[in-house]
């Protein structure tokens, strides 16, 4: 699935592959986006998870973790969506944490342009468009 994403959207793949964030001291830190298959339960096809220290703005383990359901095919746009979340998180980890609320639904049109959803849905739609253009 990762390779499929890289083939279809190499530009955004490069962004995720070289992701960094700045903590509150202004230090630029590499962050790994770790993708694994697993049970996603009520989180539909996939989810992105992280923990942050609000005082310093550091991300736990300098790692953003993505879990993708094994039931989704490699051409699914779920990974594109979750990579979009990772990009938003790295842009402002504490802001992301503060903006997040339990039960947030990116697919709700009311959330389309929210800080949490916007890039994720943009990346998901871009992936869909690029995939269609290749056919």
């Amino acid at each position, binding site marked *: 699935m990762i390779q499929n994403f890289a083939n279809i959207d190499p530009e955004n793949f490069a962004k995720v592959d070289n992701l960094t964030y700045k903590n509150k001291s202004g*230090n630029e830190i590499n962050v790994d986006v770790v993708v694994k298959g697993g049970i996603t339960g009520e989180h539909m096809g*996939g989810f992105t998870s992280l923990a942050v220290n609000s*005082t310093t703005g550091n991300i*736990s383990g*300098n790692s953003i*973790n993505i879990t993708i359901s094994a039931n989704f095919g490699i051409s699914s746009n779920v990974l594109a969506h979750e990579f979009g979340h990772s990009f938003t998180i790295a842009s402002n980890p504490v802001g992301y944490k503060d903006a997040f609320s339990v039960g947030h639904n990116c697919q709700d049109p009311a959330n389309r342009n929210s800080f949490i959803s916007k890039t994720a849905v943009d990346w998901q739609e871009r992936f869909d468009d690029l995939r269609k253009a290749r056919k």
Partner: protein
Amino acid sequence: MKIKFLLMILILNFPYKIFSQVSTDAKSIFKMWLFLDKMNVYQRNPKTTIKDDSLFSLFENVTDFKLDTLQSKGFDRIGYQFYLLHLNNLKILKDLNEDEAQSLLIFTGKFDSVIIGLNSKTGKSYRLLGFNGNDFLSFLIDITENNSINNEGISQKKFFNEFKVEKLDFNCLNKALKDKNLDRRKYPCLIRYSDPIITH
């Protein structure tokens, strides 16, 4: 003669000094629990980090916070106090390099509250909210087995009816910790600060 006199003073004062210092400092207890509760974090290029007393000493020296004392009912007569800490308000007293940050910082999801109950007489402490572990059952046993009010023991029924602490739901904790599934969605009192933010 002077040496003997000095020794006598030291000997006479020694036990007094030990026992006069028996008290329980809630902030220190919190730091110990937070340090023990903190999981090791995977690092990309880790330097050797050992979770030992040196690391604890560093953790103790770089963190500072204010505790909120919680309102309670029934506990003042048996010497218990309850303290709340918001981890997002934890101060870091020095700039940390990346290795130190990963080893020493407390990382949270959306929930950032931890509560500890403290028995000022025995010095025992109990994690009652927000930590990775929860000591409610040993807290309940200690209260019902080792305390009395007006020479009357404290039954579990009396405890659940008459003992309250703001922000704690003892009935929820009791049911949750006896439920083999430990379902955190069914029992919100099991929420942990380490539960990550999850978006989908």
